[in-house]
């Protein structure tokens, strides 16, 4: 894992001091709320329905055990003993007092963490593949590149007041576990014919009210040009992105309006200029960062077989354990989706336990996934059974990775001031309706994603089944969508028709899954059947 040197630490410490000063000026009344707002937003502090909400950055979703333990400490000390892991691989606390905000950032800085640029119209936390460094199929570990981009984008003076927020994702395999093409910039690391590693750039994706899949802008950007190329992409956006209407301000609208070809032309022109300025770091910097991500000292003697004789363990193993590049190791996903629970929530005690387990079984490392789960990336196969027992005891062993129970839900009307409808109670009802393990397994991979309003924090556009909360004459109502995907088969979901009540939408999902079971062909997932037979039969089942 990356470790701060004195410069990184100094920058984060400076930020704490600066933010403390800003908070004090606000509390003393020297600054209006309007003046304070953009400052607190650049530090992840939102004003929500009931309290301040703080969003803490987890760069590219990677955490050490000590960092996870600090997240637990903060939940206990300043919040109500829990936190919410988000689809952007961050964590949010819902019950924060303004008076505590600077102290929290101070506590975070002791474990090399911060909340810098986790909100506001700036470059946000960089997201990545939760299997980075563990998966056999990646071209390289994407995280050194993501860390370089983290540094470049932190306190970037030109891009702190963009037309709108800006999200970058870096992955390095053809399998996309990070919804890469639904980001403002999606980067896939690839090798060129000469065997060099470079970045394939997709620009202009996003969700929100106008979802778009990012088009390819450049096939290969070498490591030596990465920063200059990003500067060019951002500068064109900063200058020409729309500022007249905040709903049209994301880069996806610019790329869509002028066309990917024209955007690319402008970027290339800007890049040709910027490249003359010598802004890229020396190659030695990427190498320095990469050393922190060297593979851990895997046990060469460890057995490659797993004893699956305990049937309950076997169910979890089949569902939540993925192949590791080392045959004696495995990648284990801890599902934060117990039946009837709040997707992505973890208590302080659970966080402490996950920190301990990471230390004991996974080289002190864990990851947050965009589907709001936690991954232990490097577990010896021989330790999986013991790990599972401890997880099971703590209610952390739902065996539902990528099944209907493993749904994404945004905070919705229970917390969010922008919400039209509640997301959490609906998620709980669906989870209960489909609680039966056999039944979930029978339905197979089914990604269900719920947003409480058009902003799409819950990725409903990218759900095999998406649910969007709307307000219909003062009553909460839910639109149903089918056919989206945030994976390598990326696609945008389509609305089925008129919306449903909360209970109605649960029934509708059941009708749709029944139809799928009746219609599916060998090996088809729900989304495959939908793509083959189209919307009509589903409409018939739902409204007929």
């Amino acid at each position: 894992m990356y470790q701060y040197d004195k410069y990184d630490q100094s920058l984060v410490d400076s930020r704490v001091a600066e933010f403390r000063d800003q908070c004090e000026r606000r509390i003393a009344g020297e600054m209006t709320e309007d003046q304070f707002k953009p400052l607190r937003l650049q530090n992840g502090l939102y004003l929500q329905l009931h309290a301040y909400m703080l969003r803490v950055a987890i760069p590219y979703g990677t955490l050490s055990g000590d960092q996870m333990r600090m997240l637990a400490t903060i939940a206990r000390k300043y919040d109500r003993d829990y936190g919410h892991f988000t689809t952007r691989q961050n964590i949010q606390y819902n019950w924060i007092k303004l008076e505590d905000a600077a102290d929290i950032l101070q506590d975070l800085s002791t474990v090399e963490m911060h909340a810098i640029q986790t909100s506001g119209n700036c470059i946000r936390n960089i997201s990545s593949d939760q299997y980075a460094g563990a998966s056999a199929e990646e071209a390289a570990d994407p995280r050194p590149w993501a860390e370089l981009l983290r540094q470049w984008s932190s306190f970037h003076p030109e891009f702190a007041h963009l037309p709108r927020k800006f999200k970058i994702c870096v992955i390095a395999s053809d399998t996309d576990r990070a919804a890469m093409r639904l980001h403002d910039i999606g980067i896939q690391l690839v090798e060129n014919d000469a065997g060099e590693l470079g970045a394939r750039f997709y620009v202009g994706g996003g969700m929100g009210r106008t979802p778009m899949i990012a088009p390819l802008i450049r096939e290969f950007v070498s490591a030596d040009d990465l920063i200059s190329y990003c500067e060019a992409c951002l500068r064109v956006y900063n200058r020409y992105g729309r500022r007249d209407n905040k709903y049209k301000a994301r880069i996806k609208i610019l790329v869509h309006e002028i066309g990917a070809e024209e955007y690319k032309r402008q970027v290339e022109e800007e890049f040709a200029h910027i490249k003359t300025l010598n802004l890229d770091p020396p190659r030695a910097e990427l190498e320095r960062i990469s050393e922190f991500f060297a593979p851990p000292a895997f046990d060469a003697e460890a057995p490659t077989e797993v004893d699956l004789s305990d049937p309950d363990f076997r169910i979890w193993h089949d569902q939540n354990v993925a192949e590791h590049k080392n045959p004696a190791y495995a990648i284990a996903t801890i599902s934060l989706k117990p039946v009837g629970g709040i997707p992505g929530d973890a208590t302080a005690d659970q966080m402490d336990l996950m920190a301990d387990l990471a230390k004991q079984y996974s080289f002190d490392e864990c990851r947050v996934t965009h589907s709001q789960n936690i991954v232990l990336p490097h577990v010896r196969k021989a330790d999986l059974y013991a790990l599972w027992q401890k997880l099971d005891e703590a209610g952390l062993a739902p065996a539902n990775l990528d099944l209907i129970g493993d749904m994404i839900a945004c905070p919705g009307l229970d917390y969010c001031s922008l919400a039209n409808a509640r997301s959490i109670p609906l998620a709980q009802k669906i989870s209960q309706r489909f609680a039966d393990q056999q039944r979930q397994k029978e339905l197979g991979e089914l990604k269900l994603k719920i947003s409480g309003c058009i902003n799409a924090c819950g990725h409903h556009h990218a759900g095999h089944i998406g649910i969007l909360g709307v307000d219909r004459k003062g009553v909460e109502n839910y639109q149903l969508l089918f056919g989206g995907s945030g994976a390598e088969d990326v696609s945008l979901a389509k609305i089925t028709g008129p919306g449903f009540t909360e209970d109605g939408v649960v029934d509708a999902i059941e009708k749709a899954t029944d139809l799928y079971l009746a219609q599916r062909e060998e090996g088809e997932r729900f989304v495959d059947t939908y793509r083959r037979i189209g919307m009509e039969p589903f409409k018939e089942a739902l409204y007929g």
Partner: protein
Amino acid sequence: MAESFATGGVGDAQLRYRDDEPCAQPAVTVEAFKGQTNATAVRLESGEDARELLAMLDRLTLVVVHFPAFTDGRGYSAARILREAGYAGELRAAGDVLVDQIRYMRRCGFDSFAPDAPLDAAAVERALGFYDHVYQPTVDGQTPVWTLRHGGDHG
């Protein structure tokens, strides 16, 4: 160091980080500037293209970049573009310019400030003093962390 002026007439800088004489001419619009070959000061609106000025840099001594709202960040790019092209005259941020924006503006090449609401000079000094390091090289010449780490002094 910054000289602080009492807010004078429209267009005067409250804060100035230069030693030369301030330009005495009023800043004119880009259109007017193109026509008046003896003009030396221009005012760039946030939607205007700074590159239009590049052919006329040799007769410019003051560029005033207007910020209609502090959230409109186009002026930061305009400033860097001018500095990157070698413009060495005064570069002034005017309009909705707040204490907490000054540091980034300095990093992008602004060296004078004419905020709509006068700034507290002490607060500005404090805001400029929090950070010892920067990650990115910009036109301000500060040595970035990336260079310090690898024993160089140039970004």
